[in-house]
């Protein structure tokens, strides 16, 4: 249980900001406003926001925006970014073609 456990806790109303249309996730083109709004709809974890908005789910897997998203969500929730668990790390670490995965060659010359 943390201070973010009860999802009915009042975090205040969503207040539009002038830079809400700024792109945060470069890959999936998710804006700051979309992320802030999602927090006010009840998505309080990085995982939920990712799954709902796709930020950090593009080709780079959040390499560039993870810290930025975390900062935005923390500010909206008025909590420390350290409280927010980063998204799960998932293989493959780099986008990998299906035919490459499909070919599990028996031997290397190592």
């Amino acid at each position, binding site marked *: 249980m943390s201070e973010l456990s009860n999802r009915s806790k009042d975090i205040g109303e969503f207040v539009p900001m002038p830079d809400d249309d700024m*792109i945060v996730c470069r890959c999936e083109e998710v804006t700051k406003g979309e992320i802030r709004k999602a927090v006010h709809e009840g998505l309080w974890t990085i995982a939920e926001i990712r799954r709902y908005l796709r930020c950090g789910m593009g080709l780079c897997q959040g390499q560039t*925006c993870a810290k930025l998203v975390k900062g935005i969500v923390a500010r909206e929730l008025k909590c420390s970014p350290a409280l927010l668990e980063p998204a799960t790390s998932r293989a493959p670490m780099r986008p990998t073609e299906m035919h490459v995965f499909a070919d599990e060659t*028996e031997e*290397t010359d*190592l």
Partner: protein
Amino acid sequence: MKIERFDLIIVGAGPSGLSAAIEAAKRGMKVVVFDENARPGGQLFKQIHKFFGSKEHKAKIRGFHIGEQLLQEARDAGVKVELNATVVGLYQDREVVVRMGEEVHHFKGDAVIIATGASENMVLFDGWNLPGVMGAGAAQTLMNLYGVKPGEKVLMLGSGNVGLVVSFQLLQAGCDVVALVDAAPKIGGYGVHAAKVARTGVPFYLSHTIKKVEGTDHVTGVTIAQVDNHFQFIEGTEKHFDVDTVCVAVGLSPMSQLLKMAGCEMEDNPKRGGQVPIIDDYGKTSVPGIFSAGDVSGIEEASSAMIEGRMAGVAAAEYLGFMTADEKKTELDKLSTSLESLRQGMFAPKNRGKNITETEEGIPISTNLLSKGFVADDEIERYPGVIHKAGIHPVIECTQNIPCNPCQDACNQGCISIGDNITALPISVKDSKCINCGMCVASCPGQAIFLVDEDTGDGKASITLPYEFLPLPEVGAKGKALSRKGEPVCDAEVVKVRSSKAFDNTSLLTISVPKEYAMKARFFKAE
């Protein structure tokens, strides 16, 4: 599916990964290092400046040369480095799946060391997605690895060591750096790095940040503005620059995803730069057999990464019985001492976030250096490296406590003294005889040493300064002497140009200026 086995699998052939591999291989372990890049060395081969530290840390050697030495040492130790080998994941039971060419291969290591380094942080500003806005590391990669200019006119955001060093490298590559900007009120990196950029004429804008990057298909300009204590823009302070490139150097984050995937206990540690594994002093994670080393477990310098790598290599060797606990202890004690000496001084990890106003010697830190990038004329006199005496002598404009002492080793005449405390400010010894060999000027990684003769007759003074730009001025070339601030202060003539193998591509330019500028002129710009 075939699984190939190694005693130790290392992910990442950068400074820490290679160092770990060397130590493990020396103990007879069967080691393989995987790296996704076409060349080994991680970021070392992009570092064309001379490193800080002491002899044992390979101080005053340029980063890419350290990379070459490390590679040679790895080859000699029989380390196998697999390049273009992208690690796809770290699965249960220390299984490493690697993409090599158009196939994936499965490997298991009795021990695994993750040394995947870091990636660049970003900040949001209007237009940060436009082509022409790039990470400072990207600029470094383009110019230092591939010989391509990142841009013609560049604005640098970020005054940490990366921002400062890359700004200097941009100048070396022939780019025009129009400004160095940081939202913080103080320069984040080493003062000497800032000073060598400032004296070429690059203006520093602290407490400023980017308001908007302009351009439709690519960057054509940038507007910065001053920010208040809460990082809010102050109306009316906007400044515009025509640029084609904006570089962002706002810190690094550990690339610790593989460790997280493997189930290692992680923590969010701002002092280490973000998500890092919880490790002991030698890189052991919570998962038996998995170790980490280098930036992936906390952002530091390449020099520390190399020592951390050696520690993890030793720890893994002992874990698998390739050395005794006693042998391990001896080795680790030695490495710890070396690492500890690097982790000293104003910029040490333990001092991050602290407001340091005085040197260890009790001398006030230059406020101009912190806010503008250069030490003011009236501040410079208070440091022990700055003395006045007849004849030629070193003037050492080193004003912050950093772990670095090659200048002391460079002078065999006893003109420079630091003592045993590696972070102490160097003293220019009054009672000594400088023979004008120039070794101190060339060996100072901060390019902070000048040989000054305040009176060469005819009302002139001579100043010998380090010079790492092209074209190299010739003897007789006339131009302007620039101040520490980078402003032309007087006419100057090049009277001597020295290049030598021992100087390692740092040329020594001796200029003659009116003697009242002996303590003011610090750079030369040809006409």
